[in-house]
């Protein structure tokens, strides 16, 4: 019974994936892609990966969808771009890509059932960090260096996006300005929802220690709140030259890196935590990451500064 549910879910995901690549309009593709992400979220739940499911829904489907929808809207009037490959070439490509998929499928079917060494290690080390959620144990402790590097990637991407600003707009507020909408459903929603969103983000961060959730998922919800308030025209992003904004963005990576380096002195290895205070330290670092990642994700969606004249 559940096997057929899984097969149906997988076929639905593949059908939506096909629709996302085969549709002509970028807007329609993006809608298909967002629905594909939501179907995939259920697939991740079926795979027992609840933390991944939350992240897929929030980042893979939500934020990426918002980014692509915005771009599709702005490129709607772009002239015809490159030539479509000729029919024989497309057939050849289809055969080659089907070959890649079949090869990967064969690898999936050949995967052996392995000894759960890493799951056992992560679970047995729960008392070392005080976190019961094995995924967050991996993210924050056992492979913390990966997470720090990921923060650096986010930071570098934001620097890259900002550097695309035209010279005349540099240092100004990012993105285009959304005029304050007339009082209506959107402004009401953008006033009522953010307090709830902040609460849910804090809740996700807090329960992430022992249950699915964590800093990333909370940060994405905070980023969504920032984008909603901006979309409703209630507030604008600060100028990219703002020192406070830059400090906010650097806070999370700096705290994580600083604590990681302090581990050399306090616990004998980089990214090791003194056992007595591991959970408290991890929570503080996660909180710093929450605000920085939220700001960075929102600013990545907003884009580079582009308003040449000074905003009033």
């Amino acid at each position: 019974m559940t096997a057929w549910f899984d097969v149906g879910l997988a076929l639905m995901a593949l059908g939506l994936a096909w629709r996302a690549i085969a549709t002509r309009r970028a807007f329609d593709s993006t809608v298909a892609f967002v629905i594909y992400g939501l179907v995939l979220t259920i697939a991740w739940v079926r795979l027992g990966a609840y933390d991944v499911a939350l992240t897929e829904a929030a980042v893979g489907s939500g934020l990426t969808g918002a980014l692509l929808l915005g771009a599709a809207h702005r490129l709607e009037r772009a002239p015809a771009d490159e030539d479509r490959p000729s029919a024989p070439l497309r057939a050849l490509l289809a055969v080659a890509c089907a070959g890649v998929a079949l090869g990967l499928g064969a690898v999936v079917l050949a995967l052996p059932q392995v000894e759960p060494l890493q799951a056992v290690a992560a679970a047995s080390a729960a008392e070392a960090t005080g976190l019961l959620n094995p995924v967050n144990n991996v993210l924050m402790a056992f492979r913390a260096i990966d997470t720090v590097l990921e923060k650096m990637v986010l930071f570098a991407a934001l620097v890259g996006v900002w550097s695309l600003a035209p010279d005349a707009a540099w240092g100004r507020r990012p993105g285009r300005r959304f005029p304050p909408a007339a009082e209506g459903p959107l402004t009401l929603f953008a006033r009522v929802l953010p307090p709830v969103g902040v609460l849910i983000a804090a809740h996700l961060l807090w329960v992430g220690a022992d249950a699915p959730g964590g800093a990333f998922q909370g940060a994405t919800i905070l980023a969504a709140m920032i984008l909603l308030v901006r979309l409703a025209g209630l507030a604008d992003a600060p100028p990219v030259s703002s020192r406070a904004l830059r400090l906010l963005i650097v806070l999370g990576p700096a705290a994580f890196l600083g604590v990681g380096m302090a581990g050399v002195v306090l616990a004998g290895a980089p990214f090791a935590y003194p056992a007595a205070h591991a959970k408290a330290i991890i929570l503080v670092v996660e909180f710093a990451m929450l605000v920085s990642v939220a700001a960075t994700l929102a600013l990545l969606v907003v884009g580079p500064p582009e308003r040449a004249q000074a905003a009033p």
Partner: protein
Amino acid sequence: MILDVAAVFGLAGAGAVGLGLFGMLANPRPLQKVLAFNLMGSGAFLMFGAVARRAAAPGLGPDPVPHAMVITGLVVSFAATALIVGLLLRLHAVSGSTSLKPQPGPRRAARSTPASKTSERGDAA
């Protein structure tokens, strides 16, 4: 070999990689190439999920290390997508087109932008 949940979604992941690859190569619109690239990435993540599930232990759940890597990967692929979309929008603003082909059209010259700006085309390729 049985068709369990890991195999079903692993195969779906393989299919998504194939579809994404095809979309990236065959779709003429750069924005949809970016979308197809994301599709390819999510297929690869799904295969990670299958690997994690293969190492599941009774009472412990799946292997958490691939899960953590997928979470990291999702955020990184979002960052890369944001950068590519930024490059595309800038290219469109500067040249009036999203094509990566060299176009000796009049539009680029008409915008009177510094020549250095157009070099972004190279980065996007």
